[in-house]
């Protein structure tokens, strides 16, 4: 009984301490934002150059994806402070989008099948 009330007390205090913690907020030196900002500019210029130079095929697609992932990673990690959050939050937010990737795989297979069926049909095979 005493232990239970002590634990309750504990809970109250730890929640207050947490509130004080988050009141501090995400406080980081301006320098790091400026560096990330510069990198986002560089990476955007790179991905634009992929089109400007006119790269084609797998090189084009892999470079587009590479620059995209790097930019997205920098924005989420630094600008949105994800690297400084506790894993309980970051995993809760970052894991579910994997479901979208599974969906992409399913629909890629489906679209491929649709395309083959259509080509077959339009070629007179029906």
């Amino acid at each position, binding site marked *: 009984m005493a232990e239970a009330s002590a634990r309750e007390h504990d809970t109250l205090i730890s929640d207050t301490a*947490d509130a004080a913690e988050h*009141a501090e907020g995400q*406080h980081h030196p301006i320098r790091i934002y400026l560096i990330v*900002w510069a990198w*986002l500019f560089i990476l955007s210029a790179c991905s634009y150059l992929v089109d400007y130079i006119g790269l084609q095929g797998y090189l084009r697609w892999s470079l587009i994806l590479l620059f995209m992932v790097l930019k997205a990673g920098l924005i989420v990690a630094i600008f949105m402070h994800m690297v400084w959050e506790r*894993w*309980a939050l970051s995993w809760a937010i970052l894991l579910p989008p994997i479901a*979208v990737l599974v969906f992409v795989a399913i629909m890629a297979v489906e679209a491929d099948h649709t395309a083959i069926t259509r080509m077959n049909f339009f070629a007179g095979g029906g």
Partner: protein
Amino acid sequence: MAETLTSNGTTHQRPDGLRGIAADWSSDQRAFKNVSWGKAMMWVFLLSDTFIFGCFLLAYMTARMSTTVPWPNASEVFGLHVGDVSVPLLLIAIMTFVLISSSGTMAMAVNFAYRRNRRMTVLMILLTALMGATFVGMQAFEWSKLISEGVRPWENPWGAAQFGSSFFMITGFHGTHVTFGVIFLLIVARKVWRGDYDRGTRGFFTSRRGDYEHVEIMGLYWHFVDLVWVFIFAFFYLW
């Protein structure tokens, strides 16, 4: 950061890593230990928005992969003529840089807000809003140009009809997000300017006391809008 004061005055360290996830989620208290409800809810909202944009891009992928009609060349469709030279994707490139710049000023605004520098916070938020409005303006220009060239959700002069429907749906939804972002940026800027977050004035909508964390939460939304553009730029314009 992960320290907690217990009732007998000693501090105990919250475990980090995977053990930390298990401890936080099974603590029989709130799962997000040092994150306020407002920030957690913004993240949950952004996650749901991720699924929405994910499904839009997914629909676009499916349409583009399964059509037997050639897909219009985005590089030419979105090109602009500067004098006699045709520059591919020029407007889109400018829009990308404007949006990334606005993300940078938003990050600055969050930083200044936690330093309690009201003047700079307001200035940075207003700059962000200005660039957001510029982005929407350029998008309106792009839409008008394409519509005048005959692009419709059901047809276009260059190839697969789904090009128009994907384009209007994806960029339209993103532009709407930017527009609402600008409106909320202006509201937050006004609140910072009046000192609402110093006094903890209650908000007009939730009736809860505001504090400078609102600027960070606003920032999360704005960075997300920029994040979505990164994917649209890669998949719709460059691919």
